[in-house]
């Protein structure tokens, strides 16, 4: 068992955009896992229909080529086939709809109260994160800005246009509520590994609930055009073990409050 776990740690999950990437990033939340599973379900029927339709098309082109078959057929009706080709394609969307609606409604269900609220506020062109659960007054709040590291300042191995100076630290396996809002123009907070894309609309607080299931660093990018530096507004979420989260937050709270 220990050997198997160790092997797992040597595989790097895809939590950021990769060059020439075809599939989705690896799931880090149950929501993303559900989306990936739905995609696999639909893709099965997609391939089924694709193969079936192309076979019929190729067959028709091949067998009814004008040189091989100069006189066209004069069939105008075919009741059986018409009934079949109406009923059969209407059953397939039912098979697609069942898992799709199941996922859609389960995404909206909030069965457990969140443990933490994090506010992700978009500005032109940086992000501010507020952790205000520990305030004892209106002014004090764990707030920090998050700027994308410019290309010239990148260290060896860091991703271009994805790394930021201050990451959003969250505890793993905890229900989070993320409130997304902008301070100026519309933005969007998107982290593909977590299956999250939430538009930040001025004057509105949008809520999303996630529960990151594994520790790691997850990257995302702004997904709503917000001006010149829309490409330079990335998001990095760092999921740490729950017990480490307490010390990380205390670390940042101490300089804020200045006393124990």
């Amino acid at each position, binding site marked *: 068992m220990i050997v198997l776990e160790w092997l797992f740690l040597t595989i790097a999950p895809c939590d950021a955009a990769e060059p020439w990437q075809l599939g989705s990033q690896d799931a880090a939340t149950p929501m993303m896992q559900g989306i990936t599973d739905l995609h696999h379900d639909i893709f099965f029927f997609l391939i089924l229909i694709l193969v079936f339709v192309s076979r019929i098309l190729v067959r028709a082109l091949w067998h009814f080529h004008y040189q091989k078959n100069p006189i066209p057929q004069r069939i105008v009706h075919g009741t059986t086939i018409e009934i079949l080709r109406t009923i059969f394609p209407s059953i397939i969307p039912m098979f697609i709809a069942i898992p799709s609606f199941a996922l859609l409604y389960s995404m909206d269900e*909030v069965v457990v*109260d*969140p*443990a*933490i*609220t994090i*506010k992700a*506020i978009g500005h032109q062109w940086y992000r501010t994160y*507020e952790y*205000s*659960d*520990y*305030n004892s007054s*209106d002014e004090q*709040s764990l*707030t920090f800005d998050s700027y994308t590291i410019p290309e010239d300042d990148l260290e060896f191995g860091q991703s271009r246009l994805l790394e930021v100076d201050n990451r959003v630290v969250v*505890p793993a396996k*905890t229900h989070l*509520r993320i*409130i997304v*809002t902008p*301070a100026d123009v519309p933005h969007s907070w998107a982290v593909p590994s977590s299956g999250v894309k*939430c538009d930040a609309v001025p*004057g*509105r*607080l*949008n*809520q*999303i*609930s996630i529960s990151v299931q594994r520790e790691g660093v997850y990257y995302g990018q702004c997904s709503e055009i917000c001006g010149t530096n829309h490409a330079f507004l990335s998001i990095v979420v760092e999921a740490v073990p*729950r017990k480490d*989260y*307490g*010390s990380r*937050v*205390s*670390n940042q*709270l*101490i*300089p804020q409050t200045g006393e*124990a």
Partner: protein
Amino acid sequence: LLHIFDLFNVSAIYSQIEVELKTAPADFRFPTTNQTRHCFTRYVEFHKSLAAKGEESGACEKFAKYYRSLCPGDWVSSLALQLAKTFLNCALIKYQNLWQHF
């Protein structure tokens, strides 16, 4: 940078700062994605409770925590400003009513 000298005096403080993971609960009155009204309602509830119970009683602290968790800092300042304006308007109207009696 601040973390480096935190390591020296932080071990005693760790035992004192208990970071409890608690936040505003999911409110069934606001089941949808849009939580703007939720933030506003919690703020209003806090001030209503202050008016009803007074500042010294700790019962209102719960609502205060809720609105601070939900509302961004800038929104809290503008809500406070709005509240102050509303109080001022009410006071002015009362004053005008009194003056009319003379």
